[in-house]
C-alpha cells in the first residue's frame, strides 16, 4: 500500500523557500511516497505531517532520546535526521511495534514493571530498548543502564525501565 502526502502548497514566493523533494519511506510496514521540504526533520514529518504522534519531542537537539525511532532496525534520534536523508529506508515507530492486539515483549514488560509514569519518554525508551536488543551488546543490568542513558526519563522511572528491558532481553534472546 502506498499513500501520497504533500505539505501545504506555499503560494507565491517573495523570499525563496526550499523546494519540496520526493522521497519514499516505509513506515511501520507501509510504503509511502512523500513530498517534503528538505528542512523537515524526520521527527516533525512523523508528528506534524503524518499524525504519528507517538514519537515524542523533548528537546529537538539530540539530548533526550524522546524521539527515538528505528531505522532499518537501528535506533536513532529522529530529531537529528532530516526526513530526506532517510529516502528508501524502513522506519519503525512506537505505533508499529505491536502486532494487532498483541504487544511487543518490550511494551508488555514496560507495563508489567511500571517502567514509566507520565509516559512521555516511553515511546523513545521502548524503541531504544528494541534497538538495544537488536544490537546484542547488553548482557547485564549495568550494560542496560549505560546503553539506555541516551533516553532521559524525568519522572525517574529508571528502576522499572531496567527491570523491563532485562526481562525483554531474556525473552527476545533466550540464550543470553
Amino acid at each position, binding site marked *: 500500500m502506498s499513500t501520497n502526502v504533500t*505539505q*501545504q502548497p*506555499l*503560494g507565491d*514566493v*517573495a*523570499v525563496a*523557500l526550499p523546494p519540496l523533494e520526493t522521497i519514499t519511506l516505509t513506515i511501520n510496514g507501509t510504503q509511502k511516497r512523500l513530498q517534503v*521540504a528538505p*528542512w523537515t526533520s524526520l521527527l516533525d514529518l512523523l*508528528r506534524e505531517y503524518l499524525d504519528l*504522534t*507517538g*514519537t*515524542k*519531542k*523533548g*528537546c*529537538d*537537539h539530540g*539530548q*533526550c532520546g*524522546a524521539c527515538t525511532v528505528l531505522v532499518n532496525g537501528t535506533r536513532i534520534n529522529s530529531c537529528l535526521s532530516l526526513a530526506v536523508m532517510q529516502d528508501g529506508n524502513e522506519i519503525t*515507530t*512506537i*505505533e508499529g511495534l*505491536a502486532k494487532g492486539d498483541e*504487544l511487543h515483549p518490550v*511494551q508488555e514488560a*514496560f*507495563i*508489567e514493571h*511500571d517502567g*514509566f*509514569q*507520565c*509516559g*512521555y*519518554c*516511553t*515511546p523513545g525508551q*521502548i524503541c531504544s530498548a528494541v534497538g538495544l536488543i537488536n544490537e546484542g551488546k547488553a548482557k547485564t543490568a549495568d550494560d*542496560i*543502564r*549505560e546503553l*539506555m*542513558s*541516551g*533516553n*532521559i*526519563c*524525568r*519522572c*525517574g*522511572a*529508571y*528502576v*522499572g*525501565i*531496567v527491570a523491563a528491558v532485562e526481562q525483554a532481553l531474556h525473552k527476545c534472546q533466550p540464550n543470553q
Partner: protein
Amino acid sequence: MAATTHIGRSTRRVDGRAKVTGEAKYAAEFNTPGLTYGYVISSDIAKGKITKIDASDALSLPGVLQVFTHENAPRPAYFDRKFKDDDSPVGEKFKPLYSAEIQFSMQPIGLVVADSFEVARYAASLVKVEYKAETPETNLRKKPKGHKAPTGKTGFTPPKSRGNAAKAYKNAEVQFEAEYYHMPEHHNPMEMFASTVIVEEDGKLKIYDKTQGVANSQTYVTNIFGLSKEEARVINPYMGGGFGSGLRPQYQLYLAVMAARELNRSVRVVLTREQMFSFGHRPATLQTVSLGATKDGLLQAIKHEALGETSRFEEYTEVVVNWAGMLYHCDNVELGYYLRNLDTYTPLDMRAPGSVTGIAAFETAIDELSYKVGIDPLELRLKNYAEKNEFEGKPFSSKELRACYAQGAARFGWAKRPAQPRSMREGTKLIGWGVATGMWDAQQQKSAAKANLSVDGKLVVGSSTADIGTGTYTAMTMIAAETLGLPLDAVTFKLGDTTLPVAPLEGGSWTVASVGSAVKEACEAVAKKVFKMAKDVKDSPLSGASFDEVEFVEGKVQLKGDYSSGVSIVEAMRAGEVNFIEEETTTMPNMLKQMQYARNTHSAVFVEVEVDEDLGQICVRRVVSAIAGGRVISPKTARSQILGGVVWGISMALEEESVLDHHFGRFMNHNLAEYHVAVNADIHDIDVIFVEEHDDIVNPLGAKGLGEIGIVGVAAAIGNAVYHATGKRVRELPITLDKLL
C-alpha cells in the same frame, strides 16, 4: 467475576497500554485540518526596553500569517486580577506582548504564526529586534539582605518562633552554626509546554493545554479574553510530567489563544527546550542554621533563616524554614524567611517546594551536630523525636516515623555503620553512609466528581483533575471499582476536561486525598440508589437491611460477608427500571476535625555513596526510603512515585543547577545537555518501604499523598553520606566533583 477488592493491591497502570503504544495524546498532539503554528520569539536581554522591532522580512515569507509583537498585539484585559490564577503569588502579573519593557531574560516578545512549523521557526529568526539594555541584578548572594515575605491571602504561613532561641543558643553546651546555599533549578518535564487551540465552526475554542489543572487554565483564559466557560473548553488527558511547572498557565497558552482569536484559525504553540527555562524555577535560597544542644545531644535551640529570590513583579513564597520547628522536639526556636527581588521570572513551585530545600540544609546541620556531640546521626534524631507538632502545638493525626527509622535502618544494615568518617573503602573508592528525615503535608482540598453506572454494569467516573504521571487514572479507577464492587475493567475514569466536575490543581500531594474522596462519595451515592432498588426486588434478601449492613462485591450488593444473600447490580437496576444512575458530589474536607491535628507525611532516607578518591566522582549505590504516608491505595504506582522522588533527590544532590550568567542575567545552561538531570546510569539500587500507618483524620480514605515526600530528605542523606565517606562537608548543592577535590 474478577476480584473486586482493589485498594492496596498491586495492579498495572490502567493507562499503561495507551502509553506504551503511543496512543496517549499530549497537548501538542491533537492535529486538525488547517492548523497553524506559532513560534515564540524570546528576548535577548534580561532588562531594558525594545526600541525597534522589524518583522518585515518575516512577514514577506510565504506561509507567514502574522507576527505579533507589543506593537500590534491586542491587550484584551487591563487589570492584573484578570491574569490571576490559582497558584499566582501576590503582585503584578506578567502580560505577554503588552509593552516594550523587558523584565527577564528570554521574555516572550513576539509570536510568529505560519502555516507550517518550519516556516514559523525560520521566520522568527528573521525578526530584527533592537534593545536599550540595562544592567540586570540576578545574584542572590551579592547583597544577601531581603524583606519579609507578604502574608495574607497568599496561603503562606509565616514562620512562628517560640521560647528564646538566642539565649538558649548562647547558653548551650554545644553550638553549631553554618550557612547553606543551593542553585536555582528548572522542572524540565520531558514534554515541553504546548497549547493547541482549535477554533470550532461555531467559533468556540477547544484548547488542549499542558497544565496541572484544566480549570485553572480555563479561568485564566475566560477572565482575560472575556469568554464564557462554554466558549473555552480546556482539555488535557495526558501530561508529560509537571512537577509543579503546570500549576500556573504558561505564556504559550495566552499566545495561542490570542493568535487563534485574532486570526480566527486553529493555532499550536509549543515552547522549545530553551524556552522551558524562561518561566518559573525553583528559587535559589541562602540559609543559616544554628543549633544549640546539650553534650548528650538534646536540642536546646534551633535557629533557621532563609533568603529566597523572587521576581521584581511577584512575591513568590514557599515554606522553607517552618520544618525546622516541626521536625524535632525543641523549646526554643527562631525562624526567619526573607525575599529578595531579582531580574528573573517569578519562581514556581517545584516538587516539594520549600521543604526539599529547607530540609536539605536543616538535616545536614543535624548531621553535623551528630559528629560534634559524637552520637550516631540516627540515634540523635530518635533522641529528639517530636511527639507532636510543636510549630502548631497540635498532635499529629498519625506519625509512624519511628517505624520508618527502624524498618529503614534494618533493611539498610545501619547498625554496622562505623562512626568515623573515611573508615570504609574499597580500593580507591571511599564508601559512606548517611541518613536524613523527610516531612511534607497531608492535605485535602474541596473536589467534585461524577459517577454514572449503567444497567450493563459499566461505571464511568469523572473529575477535572490531572494525571501527570502520578497514577491518578489508576488510583481513581481502583477507588471507584472497589466502592461499587466492580472489576477494574468495568470502570472508566475520565479526567483533564473542563466539562467534568471541578477538581483542584493537581499538586501538593493532595490529589488522591481530595479527588479520591470525591470519587468515593459519588460512587457511594450511586451505591445507595442501587441498594434501594435492590431492596425492592421481589423477595429481596436485603429487604430489612440498612445501607450500613451491606457491601458491594463482585457486581452485587449483599449483606456483609454473606455471599448467598446478594442482589446483582444489573438485577436491581432492571427492577428499578432505570438505564443508568448518575450522581455528582462535591466533597469538602472535614475541617472541624482536621484542624485539631497536624497532618503530615514522614520519611527516613538511608543512603550509601561511593566516592572516587582521586576523581571526586560520586555514585549513589544504595537508597532505602521508608515512607509513612498513610494508606497506600495503588502500591505499584505509589512505589513509582517514591522511586521517582528518590531519583529527583539524587539529581538535586549531585547534578541540577541552573547557572546564571549575572552579567547577562541569563540561565546559560538552558538545554538538556548542559542542565544535567539523572540518567539511567546514575541510578542504582533503590528500595522503597511503606510502613503501616492508620489515619482516620486526614480524609475518608486514610491516604496522605505521596507525590512530594519521596524527594524530601534525599539530598541531605546523600550529602551526609558523602561526608561520612570523605570527611568533607559540602554545604552547597549540587555536590559536584570539583567541590570534593
